[in-house]
């Protein structure tokens, strides 16, 4: 059911559009390819008076996140965007924002980390901060990027946890797509007003934010943060339900594509999930029971739910668009294997590291993964970790 207006938007445009409709109090940002456009477009909204946001063109990403922390702690709805090196420079402040329980929303356009320097997509930047205490939501396309940004505001504020929404650099950020945009009023209504309990500008009740916690309190405060993080899964699902009402599009912690009766499946995040769907359809026509699981929420990791969805499969291929440099496997694969250990299941799980630095991932590549997976399901041995599409 289409509820909005059909428009053509790149991922960056879609995210900027969502930000315009959200109309945050403060945006503090610094340019970096391929995320630059988001804040450039947003700055033009500010210049045209289309938003009441105070835009702070800071001198670095470290200061961007620091200013966001100041604004959010002061009581304002606060957003920013970045990529790669910018996210790395923010890393210190990401942990601090999460520890302070500040509901900041950050658009991350995934791009490879240096070195070597590269501007194209992989997930190494977002993975680098996967333990920072931010919720991480991956988008498959511009539509999801738009929808996720709007939901992120509400998730962050309800859970008191900051949220990263990602797109894939260039593939989504610069790819023009047909998407549905909601009415301004619907978005305004949906996100509502942000009403924090304690905030710096409440002068009558002064707070001290960012106090020094020593051996006697730090652990308890971290424990609370951990519990809040676990509880955020339910918040994400609640917000998705509310969103479905206004948008007619449903979201979960992950998406299952022809998975329920599948025998073999890929697990893939971001734009690659879209490519995989095409291949799954082709294979299904040939009679192969192929499927896909696309994690939408990587943090918190929906362990039980993903296990439930994967446990009947004969073999699984986990697609990692980054490497952990741990000497054995990628970050998504490590999560999934660890989850299986908990239920005592030793299932064949192949890990494919692919697309580093924007290396193309084509339907043929994915078809190859499925064919290897079929062999494994039939009892053949394959290397646990393969590097897909690289010249060895």
């Amino acid at each position, binding site marked *: 059911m289409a509820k909005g207006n059909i428009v053509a938007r790149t991922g960056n445009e879609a995210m900027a559009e969502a930000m315009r409709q959200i109309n945050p*109090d*403060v945006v*503090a940002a610094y340019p970096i390819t391929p995320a630059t456009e988001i804040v450039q477009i947003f700055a033009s909204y500010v210049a045209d008076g289309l938003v*009441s*946001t*105070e835009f*702070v*063109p*800071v*001198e*670095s990403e*470290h*200061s*961007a996140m*620091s*200013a*966001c*922390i*100041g*604004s*959010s*702690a*002061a*009581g*304002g709805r*606060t957003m920013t965007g970045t990529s790669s090196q910018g996210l790395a420079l923010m890393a*210190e*402040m990401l942990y*601090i924002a999460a520890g*302070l329980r500040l509901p900041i929303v950050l658009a991350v356009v995934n791009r490879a980390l240096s070195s070597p320097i590269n501007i194209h997509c992989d997930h190494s930047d977002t993975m680098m901060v996967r333990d920072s205490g931010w919720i991480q939501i991956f988008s498959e396309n511009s539509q999801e990027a738009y929808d996720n940004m709007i939901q992120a505001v509400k998730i962050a504020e309800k859970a008191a946890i900051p949220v990263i929404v990602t797109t894939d650099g260039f593939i989504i950020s610069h790819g023009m797509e047909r998407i549905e945009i909601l009415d301004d009023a619907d978005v305004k209504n949906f996100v509502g007003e942000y009403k924090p309990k304690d905030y*710096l*500008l*409440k*002068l009558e009740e*002064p*707070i*001290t*934010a*960012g*106090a*020094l*916690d*020593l051996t006697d*309190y730090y652990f308890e405060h971290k424990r609370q943060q951990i519990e809040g993080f676990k509880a955020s899964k339910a918040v994400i699902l609640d917000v998705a339900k509310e969103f479905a009402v206004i948008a007619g599009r449903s979201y979960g912690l992950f998406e299952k594509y022809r998975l329920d009766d599948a025998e073999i499946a890929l697990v893939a995040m971001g734009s690659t999930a879209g490519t995989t769907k095409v291949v799954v359809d082709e294979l299904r026509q040939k009679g192969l029971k192929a499927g896909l699981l696309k994690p939408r929420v990587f943090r918190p990791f929906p362990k039980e739910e993903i296990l439930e969805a994967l446990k009947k499969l004969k073999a699984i291929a986990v697609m990692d668009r980054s490497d952990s440099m741990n000497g054995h496997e990628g970050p998504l694969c490590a999560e999934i294997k660890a989850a299986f250990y908990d239920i005592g299941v030793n299932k064949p799980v192949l890990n494919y590291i692919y697309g580093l630095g924007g290396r193309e991932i084509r339907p043929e590549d994915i078809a190859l993964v499925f064919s290897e997976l079929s062999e494994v399901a039939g009892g053949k041995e394959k290397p646990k970790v393969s590097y897909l599409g690289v010249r060895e």
Partner: protein
Amino acid sequence: MNIKEVVKRKELFTGGHRACAGCGAAIVARQVLMAAGPDTVVASATGCLEVVSTIFPYTAWNVPFIHSAFENAAATISGVEALYRSWARQKKYDKKVNFIAFGGDGGTYDIGLQALSGAMERGHNILYVCYNNEAYMNTGVQRSSATPIGADTTTAPVGKVQKGKAQYRKDLTAIMVAHGIPYAAQAVVGNWRDLTNKVEKALSIEGPKFINVFQPCRLGWSYKPELTCEMGRLAVDTCAWPLYEVTNGQYKVTRPKEKKPIAEWLKLQGRFAHLFRPENKALLDQIQAETDKAWEELLRKENIASQAAAPAQPKSI
């Protein structure tokens, strides 16, 4: 500011914090807030001041306070002030609020210089107060770019071949003046009237302001704790730390009644003890000569600026 009236005001930076006896940083915080009043939001960098005043579940701050990291007090307060602007524009908030950032010399001259420069250039309506004790005290007296030549610190120690820090300190106040901000000043612990007047004046001006407050640290400088204010005053009298302000490009220098030799100030501090060994006489003389030169240079700037009377570029938006 009237002292009889001041003592009746509510303490905004309270006692009970864990600073060393005789700590000048606590005096800076207390006097700055005394002048600013309760409608103030404070951001602080990591460092002695933050560490001694916010040990959970206690706080010495009776005004809204935020600490987030070491190098970013200026950026953090920028964000707070940006929200204020946003809310004012949306007609959601109508109080007048002071925005003050505190940073040590390490958090200001060194690791926080970029964030400070950015905030000043963007023209936020903030006051940045550097409490300058001339070293990284919180982590155990390491050298900073504010540490003067010849001082003994744990990362530029006095040894068999080295005589403490080999470089001159950076002139951060001049760097701030070069940003064309409407108000920059130097003040000192030990002259409360001058400091509070400067804070009041700064807060009456729209735009970014900077005050560099010289802060004797009894631990790092190694002197008797009861001498803190005296150490500050002597720094002024010897021109180790001249008091001055630059308002829209206009310099106003406070001259000591009688300019004393720098040795009178140096000799009271353990960090300079080695300078008084006969073999270091040349360095001691060099320090005196440099101090004189810097003082003459400051007076020259005051003179030129008053002749030219060119207003600095206004920086408020």
